């Protein structure tokens, strides 16, 4: 009967229900969009790091993200290889470069030099061409979503990176950059050549461990032997990059702030409508109390009302949010919706509804069953 009563109370006043649901809907959409964008940003920022096949990263001192381009001189490679537990050290080049469009103009891009045979960081989601094609003369791979920005038509297009001619030999799908500067994949040696680095220099060294090696012990040893650079786990480097782009720039704070604002707005709207609904039904709750119901029974009715409105609002809100996700695909910053985020949003909505019920419950706590005799 608790659910029946809650449902009927809720649907009794349709206008108030609509106001509640619209409030929750907007709240859910706002929170979903903000958190979806946050998640999308996170995936972009950590994309290269998370797709690397290495437990440890050796970076120039103070490097805060993948896109930072300073070079190490190559000594680190040999030092690292001498540490027990290290199976392989893979050099990577990452540097901001100018992509000169065939028709004129240029685009700031991030050049990534990596050899497929090293298996440290290879472009994923190749939709046209192959990883081996990048090794062909002047070969580069770009993401198909950046073709317009790079001023090229697609596979086979020619352009220039700094003063070096390149040709698009492969296309990827979904490798997007948070900085909006397209990633240009090429071979390690070609990348070094383009940025005029020596054959020993690298932006990062990816450290692959031997099976059974203790990552923490290797990390400690590497740090001891390489005091002029930093050695980080993949997770730590990812977290640092996230911290840099989302929090030092304020972008993440804006996204999270928007999500929090959505939650607050949703909570206030649900709390207000729930409170007024409870006030309208106060005589009924007093009657319940006079009939001998426990306070817990009445609280459950109110919580069920809150939960029901939250759930219905969530379903409506998520429907709109999924449409926004669909629309955002292919945009500079796409929104991501994962099952975990959807479940988290459901929990947030129900939590928000529960918190909203506090005001109504406080009102009911003070209910005097004797009021049933005063009407």
């Amino acid at each position: 009967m608790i659910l029946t009563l809650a449902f009927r109370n809720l649907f009794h006043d349709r206008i108030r229900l609509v106001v509640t649901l619209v409030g929750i809907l907007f709240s859910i959409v706002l929170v979903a969009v903000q958190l979806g964008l946050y998640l999308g940003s996170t995936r972009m920022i950590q994309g290269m790091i998370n797709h690397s096949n290495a437990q440890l990263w050796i970076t120039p001192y103070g490097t805060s993200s993948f896109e930072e381009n300073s070079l190490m001189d190559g000594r680190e490679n040999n030092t690292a290889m001498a540490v027990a537990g290290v199976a392989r050290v893979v050099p990577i080049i990452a540097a901001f470069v100018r992509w000169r469009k065939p028709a004129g103009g240029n685009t700031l891009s991030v050049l990534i030099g990596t050899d497929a045979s090293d298996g440290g960081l290879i472009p994923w989601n190749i939709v046209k061409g192959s990883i081996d094609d990048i090794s062909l003369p002047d070969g580069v791979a770009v993401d198909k979503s950046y073709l317009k920005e790079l001023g090229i038509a697609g596979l086979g297009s020619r352009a220039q990176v700094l003063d070096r001619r390149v040709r698009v030999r492969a296309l990827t799908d979904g490798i997007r950059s948070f900085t909006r500067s397209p990633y240009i994949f090429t071979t390690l040696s070609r990348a070094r050549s383009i940025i005029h680095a020596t054959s020993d220099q690298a932006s990062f060294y990816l450290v692959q461990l031997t099976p059974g090696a203790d990552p923490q012990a290797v990390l400690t040893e590497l740090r001891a032997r390489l005091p002029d650079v930093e050695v980080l786990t993949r997770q730590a480097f990812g977290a640092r990059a996230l911290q840099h782009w989302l929090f030092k720039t304020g972008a993440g704070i804006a996204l999270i702030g928007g999500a929090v604002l959505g939650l607050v707005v949703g909570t206030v709207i649900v709390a207000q409508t729930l409170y007024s609904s409870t006030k309208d039904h106060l005589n009924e709750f007093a009657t319940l109390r006079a009939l001998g119901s426990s306070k817990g029974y009445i609280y459950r009715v109110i919580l069920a009302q809150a939960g029901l409105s939250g759930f219905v609002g969530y379903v409506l809100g998520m429907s709109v949010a999924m449409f926004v996700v669909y629309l955002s695909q292919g945009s500079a910053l796409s929104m991501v919706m994962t099952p975990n985020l959807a479940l988290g949003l459901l929990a947030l909505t129900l939590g928000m509804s529960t918190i909203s019920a506090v005001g109504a419950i406080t009102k009911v706590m003070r209910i005097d069953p004797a009021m049933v005799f005063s009407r």
Partner: protein
Amino acid sequence: MTDVKDAGGKRPVSGKKRAGRSKSGTNGRTGKRAAAVRKQAGGGGKQASGRNNKQAGAAGNKHSGDATDRVVLRALDVVKDLGEGAGKVRGLKGVSLSLKAGELTLLMGPSGSGKTTLLSILGCILTPTSGDVILDGRSVIGKGPEELAALRREHIGFVFQSYNLFPTLNAEENVRLALDVRGDDPREAVSRARRALEQVGLGHRMKSHPKNLSGGEQQRVAVARALAGEPSVILADEPTAALDSENGQAVMALLSEIAQDKSRAVLAVTHDPRTLPFADRIVRIEDGLIVSEERSGAAGNNTVQNIRKRKRKSHV
């Protein structure tokens, strides 16, 4: 306070069909008052002070075979202060009252006399400032709000002036709700709710919402709700006040019928003189004191006989 036993005449019978008369035994109760029992109920008044009543309480709670002697609810020297500070008022000034199973008692008095306060205390909604209320052998002294609520749901059925039905629930659901509050098994609650509604003559309106029921029908749903939990006491607050004469009579007839159950007492607070013929006993209250108590008279006679007025002195 005086417990009066006098020769009980037949209960006035209205020309209407008494809803549920034949069903009152479905819950293991006879629902009929035997004439013999009425005769046994006679035998002179027994006066008892509040203290005496306290002593008699336990005995009164035992079934002695004569159901009309079983006291199910007893107020003992109840004092109730209302308000605080300068606005503090003594609403009840030492009221003692016993409700016996198988009896319909009317509580009458002018506005502000303390009727509703007494009803609230008897119904375990308010607790007395001093004195005690014994419900089915259980004292309310020292009981917290939740324990009082438990007493209400287990032992008391309420009928309110404005029916207090839930507008969003149909008749059956309104009755079921009172059973759900008690934690009754849902399937059992459905059958009990249906039985109760049939008992009050509303078997054909179970799915009707209050807005589609007449005032009389709504009040009968409220009576069914009070009845469904098989309480030992039914307390009715101005049950006919919102009804026209015909419906008022029907509801009183129904309460009177319910009061014939020897395991249940019915108390109705009323202003309505038309309810007098249905009473077994009439208690009058003024200024927080019970000033008189009367027993109803012979069959078919609407005059109240064997009146014993006993102006009481204030206990405080």
